């Protein structure tokens, strides 16, 4: 596993920045220091930083903590959140900060960082500092939950991005570039490594490679926090699925190891837990299991070893609640997919990167504060399986016998088998057993193949049926929407269509209409708002029936289904695919 440790000096907590540096230096761990603008106003800190680079240390710029009297006086601006300024203001800020950095150190920064550096920001910064090849660009799954959790006053919306380093696209820094031509020309790393279960279910700023965040989430007791080390191990374990690659980074502001309003214990506890994380890195390094790098070293390594088109996966387990839950994450240049084992192996989050949705943030952007890459499915924000009113965005398999239909989402599966072949990744979900009220029992085996081009092939095998001659209907079920947050967007204009024995289409108007065809080959939803088409196609010949359903305002979704009636040993095979519409 490769680890990047980043520290940033801020004047009011300077001694604690020095403490972090000292811990790392004593353990021989490499760090990259990211100067903040207020720190560039303090001669004592500049002196330290000059000494640091004189000793061969790596020095970049952190563009989030900007505010200080000098900043406000020189710019007339007061906001720390650089990603939310208008383009001209961003340029003014970057020119000011980079200019002063050059005056002090006689060179360009080695790296750049912010909570979010959007495409416009990175474009300006690449123009100002063309040699810089790495930046901290976004916070994985930071958005709705953190907005709620921080008094509805934290305007950082980064959901839908990769969890691990990527090559950002020119027109959307949170989207992995499709190819070299589409790439912005920089290596992006996330701001912290997040818990791939709890950052999806809850706050990413509680559950991350940030001991202070974990204290904020109460994931420690007394002076003990095994969670911090468990999370490191979980990332380390991903080497097995990614050709030996795993990545972890830590970027903790020094304000988290002194008195902090979100930590309910003395600073000494925060310091101990933070230090222990570094000690664990040193221990793993001594075992040959971890390599510490500076950011520029990592950028070079990443370019040499991880081509743009290489897919990446994460098999995540709950390491705190003890639920045994598992989520599987897949990411490539065309899509990001999450499969939730505890819901029968259903898709809980789906993003079509191949639709190449452009976005930047700031007061001059149509997106304003929303940097999120839009979803087609987000089961946490948009209902998922029904437990109150109607169900929402999700996938599942419906199994019908007589008048009774069972939902595979009710099957709690706690494992997954992952394999990689020359075509891509294959995820085998454990067999799910369903029992109908008349005593008939069936076993369904689900396999996913994640393929280039934004395609997910889904195989549902009716592996066992308790009555030899019984036939049941399997219905692949995809309930989609689109959006950025937890609130529904306007669905008008979405076109639903079915193809097979007949061709039909309708334009979404919240009227609960259904179109269907027998001998179905494809059902689809075209979502012009995000220039994305979601298709469900039948593989291995037409399905018995294909259907597209419009929703209504109390259930603003569209539903695509494909069904076949099968006997034991037979399969329903479909392909869920995403496409750019323009």
């Amino acid at each position, binding site marked *: 596993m490769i680890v990047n440790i980043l520290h940033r000096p801020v004047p009011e907590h300077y001694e604690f920045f020095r403490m972090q540096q000292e811990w790392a230096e004593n353990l021989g761990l490499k760090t990259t220091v990211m100067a903040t603008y207020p720190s560039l106003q303090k001669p004592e800190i500049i002196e330290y930083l000059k000494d640091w680079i004189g000793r061969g240390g790596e020095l970049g710029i952190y563009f989030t903590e900007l505010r200080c009297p000098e900043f406000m006086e020189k710019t007339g601006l007061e906001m720390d959140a650089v990603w939310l300024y208008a383009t001209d203001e961003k340029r003014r800020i970057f020119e000011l900060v980079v200019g002063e950095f050059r005056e002090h150190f006689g060179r360009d920064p080695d790296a750049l960082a912010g909570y979010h550096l959007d495409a416009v920001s990175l474009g300006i910064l690449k123009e100002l500092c063309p040699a810089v090849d790495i930046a901290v660009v976004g916070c994985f799954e930071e958005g709705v939950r953190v907005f709620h959790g921080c008094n509805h006053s934290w305007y950082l919306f980064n959901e839908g991005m990769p969890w691990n380093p990527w090559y950002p696209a020119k027109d959307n820094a949170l989207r992995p570039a499709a190819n070299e031509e589409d790439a912005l020309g920089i290596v992006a790393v996330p701001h912290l490594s997040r818990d791939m279960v709890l950052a999806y279910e809850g706050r990413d700023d509680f559950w991350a490679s940030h001991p202070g965040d974990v204290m*904020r989430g109460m*994931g420690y007791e007394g002076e003990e926090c*095994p969670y911090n080390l468990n999370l490191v191990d979980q990332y380390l374990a991903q080497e097995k699925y990614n050709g030996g690659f795993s990545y972890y980074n830590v970027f903790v502001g020094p304000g988290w190891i002194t008195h902090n309003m979100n930590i*309910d214990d003395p600073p000494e506890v925060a310091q101990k837990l933070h230090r222990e994380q570094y000690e664990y890195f040193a221990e793993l390094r001594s075992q040959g299991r971890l390599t510490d790098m500076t950011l520029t070293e990592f950028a070079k390594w990443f370019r040499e070893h991880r081509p743009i088109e290489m897919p990446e996966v994460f098999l995540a387990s709950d*390491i705190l609640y003890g639920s045994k839950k598992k989520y599987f994450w897949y990411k490539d240049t065309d899509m990001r997919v999450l499969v939730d084992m505890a819901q029968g192996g259903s898709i809980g989050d789906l993003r079509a990167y191949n639709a190449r949705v452009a976005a930047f943030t700031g007061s001059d952007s149509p997106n304003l504060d929303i940097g999120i890459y839009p979803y087609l499915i987000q089961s946490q924000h948009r209902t998922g399986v029904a437990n109150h009113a109607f169900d929402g965005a999700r996938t599942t398999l419906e199994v019908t016998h007589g008048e009774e239909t069972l939902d595979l989402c009710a099957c709690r599966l706690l494992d997954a088998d992952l394999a990689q072949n020359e075509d891509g990744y294959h995820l085998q979900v454990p067999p799910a057993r369903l029992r109908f009220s008349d005593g008939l029992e069936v076993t369904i085996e689900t396999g996913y193949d994640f393929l280039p081009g934004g395609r997910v092939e889904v195989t549902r095998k009716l592996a066992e049926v308790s009555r030899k001659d019984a036939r049941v209907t399997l219905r692949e079920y995809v309930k989609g929407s689109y959006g950025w947050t937890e609130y529904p967007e306007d669905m008008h204009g979405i076109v639903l269509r079915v193809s097979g024995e007949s061709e039909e289409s309708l334009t979404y108007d919240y009227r609960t209409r259904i179109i269907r065809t027998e001998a179905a080959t494809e059902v689809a939803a075209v979502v012009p708002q995000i220039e994305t088409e979601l298709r469900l196609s039948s593989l291995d010949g037409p399905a018995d029936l294909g259907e597209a359903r419009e929703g209504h305002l109390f259930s603003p979704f569209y539903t695509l289904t494909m069904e076949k009636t099968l006997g034991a040993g037979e399969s329903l095979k479909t392909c869920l695919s995403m496409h750019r519409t323009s």
Partner: protein
Amino acid sequence: MPIYAQNVLGLRCPVCLAREIDVVLYVDGEEYYCIKCGYTGTEAETREAYKPIRGKFKLLRTRVKSG
């Protein structure tokens, strides 16, 4: 005045925290109170109220084997 200047202990509302919401408690004499919900309590009561939040984490004290 910053909120935390009124509450040097950095105590957060346990009711809001159970909903993953950080709300730093205000203090009035011996009594801490939440400005977002109806919670009130002493420091000792507040720390006691954190126990169920930690209680839901069954692996809080466990080193988990991954992979």
